[in-house]
């Protein structure tokens, strides 16, 4: 079944890729319009001819083959493709062995977990297959499959309530936690191609993505206030990982308001409390702030920052670590956008360098709403290879296409 759908979607996406000559399309469109006009005229003629008697007769005619037709119940299906070309001053075998000092370690026994843009040269990062369907009056179902060249992964699969009163909504399954601002957003909707360092260091490459349940409540106030609570298994082994029982609890409060007609603010405070692999407590605190100024229908300026702070108890002592990013993105029009981002980590350990930082700049071109090319440069001073610190210069060009029934993105 899945295979068929994938096949179908590929076929659909192939048509998207087909050399689309604007000229040809325009003539086709003009042709279509002529056909429509002709059809409309025909319909009008028929309508006038049709008497009330024949109308009554045709009303009872049904095509018997469509009686058990379930096509209209098919879920919404979207296919997202992402790939890149990368230039980097570190060769591939070295790059695979990187770690962020004080946060992660490189284990040569295990396969490296760099999900995007791992190779100098060409990368096909993933094909994402997303499905959404309404399951009766009470639930919606969503599933997001990540297909890597040699891996099939259920990124998310969950049900969401549709009919809870008092501004409540519940979710259960495997899903991306709504901790912070960017954790629940899929890679193809990020403003920069790479995951923020603070998230990579504290939650790992996959972010906080776990099995569990979620309850959200929109408060009955004039300003937007939303409180959320999640009970999760705690399988994220970067900060948590003790799964003898469900061990991770996440809570957050988000607030949004318009400062002027054209300026909007969204802010959030989050906390994740769980047990790490040593069975000791880990608390992660998050604070985020986004300002967006709308210049006209197609142009805006957005400033977004996020701070993560981790208090991890280990047998070697108490680790208080933090990281933040701050970014400015300018959407010039529907086709062009540009942005810069600065990030820094504080590992609070004495023995190694502490100026772990990265600066990125990007230029984005969208020929159409559902396709995107991004040129990104990053200078990264946060990685260590073996026992050698090496600063990475990276330039990459990536593409993202969204085919099929892809829903609109939230703010």
């Amino acid at each position, binding site marked *: 079944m899945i295979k068929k759908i994938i096949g179908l979607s590929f076929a659909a996406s192939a*048509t*998207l890729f*087909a050399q*689309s000559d*604007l000229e040809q*399309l*325009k003539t*086709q*469109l003009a042709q*279509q319009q002529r*056909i*429509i006009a002709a*059809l*409309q005229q025909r319909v009008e003629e028929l309508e006038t001819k049709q008497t009330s008697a024949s109308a009554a007769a045709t009303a009872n005619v049904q095509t018997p083959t469509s009686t058990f037709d379930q096509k209209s119940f098919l879920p919404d299906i979207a296919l997202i493709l992402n790939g890149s070309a990368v230039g980097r001053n570190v060769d591939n075998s070295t790059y695979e062995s990187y770690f962020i000092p004080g946060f992660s370690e490189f284990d040569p026994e295990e396969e490296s977990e760099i999900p995007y843009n791992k190779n100098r040269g060409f990368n096909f990062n993933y094909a994402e297959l997303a499905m959404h369907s309404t399951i009766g009056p009470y639930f919606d179902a969503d599933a997001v499959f990540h297909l890597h060249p040699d891996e099939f992964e259920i990124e998310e699969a969950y049900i969401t309530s*549709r*009919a*809870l*009163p008092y*501004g*409540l*909504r519940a979710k259960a399954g495997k899903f991306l936690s709504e901790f912070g601002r960017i954790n629940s957003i899929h890679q193809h909707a990020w403003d920069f191609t790479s995951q923020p360092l603070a998230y990579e260091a504290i939650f790992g490459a996959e972010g906080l993505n776990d099995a569990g349940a979620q309850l*959200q*409540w*929109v*408060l*009955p*106030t*004039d*300003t*937007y*206030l*939303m409180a959320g609570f999640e009970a999760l298994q705690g399988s994220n082994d970067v900060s948590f990982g003790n799964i003898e029982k469900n061990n991770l609890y996440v809570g957050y409060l*988000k607030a*949004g*308001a*318009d400062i002027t*007609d054209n300026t*909007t603010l*969204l802010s959030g405070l989050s906390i994740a409390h769980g047990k790490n692999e040593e069975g000791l407590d880990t608390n992660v605190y998050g604070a985020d702030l986004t300002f*967006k100024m*709308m210049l*006209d*229908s*197609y142009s*805006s300026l957005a400033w977004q920052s996020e701070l993560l702070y981790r208090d991890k108890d280990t047998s070697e002592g108490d680790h208080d670590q933090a990281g933040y990013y701050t970014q400015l993105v300018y959407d010039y*029009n*529907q*086709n062009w956008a540009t942005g810069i981002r600065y990030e820094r980590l504080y590992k609070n350990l004495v023995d190694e360098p502490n100026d772990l930082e990265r600066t990125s700049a990007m230029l984005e071109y969208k020929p*159409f*709403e*559902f396709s995107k090319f991004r040129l990104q440069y990053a200078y990264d001073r946060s990685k260590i290879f073996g026992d050698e610190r090496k600063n990475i210069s990276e330039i990459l060009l990536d593409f993202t296409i969204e085919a099929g029934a892809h*829903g*609109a*993105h*939230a*703010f």
Partner: protein
Amino acid sequence: MQKILWLFAFITSWTFAQVNVVTTYTYLGEIAKAIGGNDVNVKVLASPKLDPHFIIPKPSLIPTLSRADMLVANGAGLEIGWLPPLLKNANNPKIAIGSQGFVDASQTIILIDKPVSVSRAYGDIHPEGNPHFSTDPHNIVPIARMIANKLSNLDPQHQSAYQNRLANFTTQWNAFLMQFDNKIHSCKGKKVVQYHQLYNYLLKRYNIQAVATIEPLPGIAPSSKHIMEVIDTMQQQHVHTILQDPYHEKKTASFIASKTGAIVKVIPHDVGNIEGTDSLKTFYKTIADRLCQ
């Protein structure tokens, strides 16, 4: 006695709360106000200054939706780029699509320009048909009737008030339509060029021919090659009018105008788009005035 009546009126108005009606666009808000009167509290989501296809789903719109008893949408896909995430986050089953509190105005309209085949290769087309029916004032009464009926179901206590307001509104509107029809029928120039297929309902009703669009395909910015073709077409077919919406860039239209000697007319497509269009009547009056200038 009168005092007691007033007191009674005060208490009833206080105990029976108003119906919270939220509409996506301002013209729908004006219709809802006309039908709902004091029995409803109307809020509009989209700023009329923005492209109706691309409203930013600001978080501040969520609590409004969250407390709504009724949501009136334009429908026919016009809100698809911004309303679904807001609806999802509002957690309000009363206005979920298909529920009693959800009103889709497009269901009262016979949609035109329905594409024979649907593909994004043709740009950002509207697969259900053209959703820009707000430019034709003849579409207002059917929508008002639908809103009156939905309000009557939702708030049966005030059913007669809704139906009375509908009757009054219809009478007044039909009188206004007479003036509007006369005005447009009197105006010359039966060929126009528009930016997007925004005015097709209006143009079709009054037999004004839309010869070309400035955008080569829906949602695609004009290329220089396409602009030259539009200029050629306009010269061949003697088109002297360019209908410009208030939200797109106006440089292309003025350039074409300078090459063809045509006049650019900024025509509003919704209440409050441009100055002096704060009510339904002034909105349509502005359309007629500018079209027949």
